[in-house]
């Protein structure tokens, strides 16, 4: 009986996510498309939770639905003319080619998943992860993969985030602040932002042994900053820009520094000593959380804040790469 109920629930989730994906792509109204996309993100988060992947569920809810939704909504506000009209229709030949390629991709991926799950008897990656978990320094397998076994990939992910934000900073100035918010929203912000900061710290800390980690914590911190920006823009204006620059790159800086330190101990780049791995991962994650939060907040602001060009880059000692021109 319970199994049957779960099956009904799962099938409705699958149908709902397919319908939302279709509705998001096919709607003519951009505003409606973004709203549907946020709903799609929330349903995806529930599906990840049902697949027993709470780390992904958290990331999807906070980044996929929350931060992306805020980014898309502010993008619509920048270009109000696109809210009613669709971009010009593509020719039917191009449409057929795109549809064909998408279908091909779906078939190849379905085959890959099916083949990987049912056809081959090779060593399962999850088994390898579980067998090496004791030397990883953490007990959460997801964090072990992200920050230890596959730390190089995560370093590159941080670099991708940084590159994207540098592009945003180069393209535009920060968009104009919204007018003063209602007193009720201000009041809620006043006690919600500290709560979000604490939750972010909790997610960072708990990542060692339970779902959580730098990306979720960073996105949560960015959500707090976005809430501040929306309700009380003046509270962010006094932020020291040199500190902001340092925060933006401190994640990659600390990551590379730890990697090189490990090399100096006659090991490979980012090959952590099992005895210290837990502490090293926590240090890297702490720095990465700050950088991710700064990057997402700057992306939401939509460009460089006032005075970004004139701030002296020599002030920040922890800035390893060149000043964005």
């Amino acid at each position, binding site marked *: 009986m319970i199994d049957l109920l779960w099956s009904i629930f799962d099938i409705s989730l699958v149908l709902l996510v397919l319908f939302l994906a279709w509705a998001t792509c096919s709607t003519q109204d951009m505003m409606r498309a973004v709203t549907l996309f946020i709903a799609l993100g929330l349903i995806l988060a529930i599906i990840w939770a049902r697949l027993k992947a709470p780390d992904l569920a958290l990331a999807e809810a906070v980044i996929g639905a929350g931060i992306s939704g805020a980014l898309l909504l502010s993008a619509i506000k920048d270009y109000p003319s696109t809210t009613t009209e669709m971009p010009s229709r593509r020719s039917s030949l191009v449409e057929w080619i795109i549809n064909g390629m998408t279908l091909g991709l779906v078939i190849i991926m379905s085959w890959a998943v099916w083949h990987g799950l049912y056809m081959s008897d090779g060593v399962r990656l999850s088994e390898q992860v579980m067998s090496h978990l004791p030397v990883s320094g953490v007990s959460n397998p997801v964090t072990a993969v992200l920050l230890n076994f596959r730390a190089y990939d995560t370093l590159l992910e941080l670099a991708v985030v940084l590159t994207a934000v540098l592009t945003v900073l180069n393209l535009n100035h920060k968009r104009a602040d919204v007018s003063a918010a*209602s007193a*009720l*929203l201000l009041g*809620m912000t006043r006690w*919600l932002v500290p709560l979000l900061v604490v939750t972010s710290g909790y997610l960072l800390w708990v990542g060692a042994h339970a779902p959580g980690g730098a990306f979720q914590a960073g996105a949560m911190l960015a959500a707090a900053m976005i809430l501040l920006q929306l309700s009380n823009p003046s509270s962010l204006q006094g932020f020291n820009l040199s500190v902001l620059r340092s925060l933006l790159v401190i994640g990659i800086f600390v990551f590379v520094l730890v990697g090189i330190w490990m090399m100096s101990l006659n090991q490979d780049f980012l090959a952590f000593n099992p005895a210290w791995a837990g502490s090293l991962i926590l240090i890297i994650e702490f720095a990465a959380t700050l950088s991710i939060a700064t990057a997402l907040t700057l992306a939401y602001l939509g460009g460089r804040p006032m005075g970004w060009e004139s701030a002296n880059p020599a002030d920040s000692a922890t800035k390893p790469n060149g000043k964005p021109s």
Partner: protein
Amino acid sequence: MIEIIALLAIFCGLFFFLSGSIGLLRLPDIFSRLHALAKADNVGLALVTLGIIMLEPDLFNDIKLVIIWLLVMAASAISSHLVARHALRENRDND
């Protein structure tokens, strides 16, 4: 016995969610729709939370559930207020 009460609370909560959703779809203007939604968020979620707390023996999880309910209540009240204020201003501008 406690399970039956818990289930009863959860199903009552679901009824509020259902009527809230129907109200959202059927009611004529934005203010009455907000009114319908708020009932689902506050009473519906309260009853569902109450039901789950009865079934969940761990006190720590119970506290977390109550915090979630309080957060949703606050967020729903504030966002309803913001939507209503925006709608009121648009009405005033159109008149």
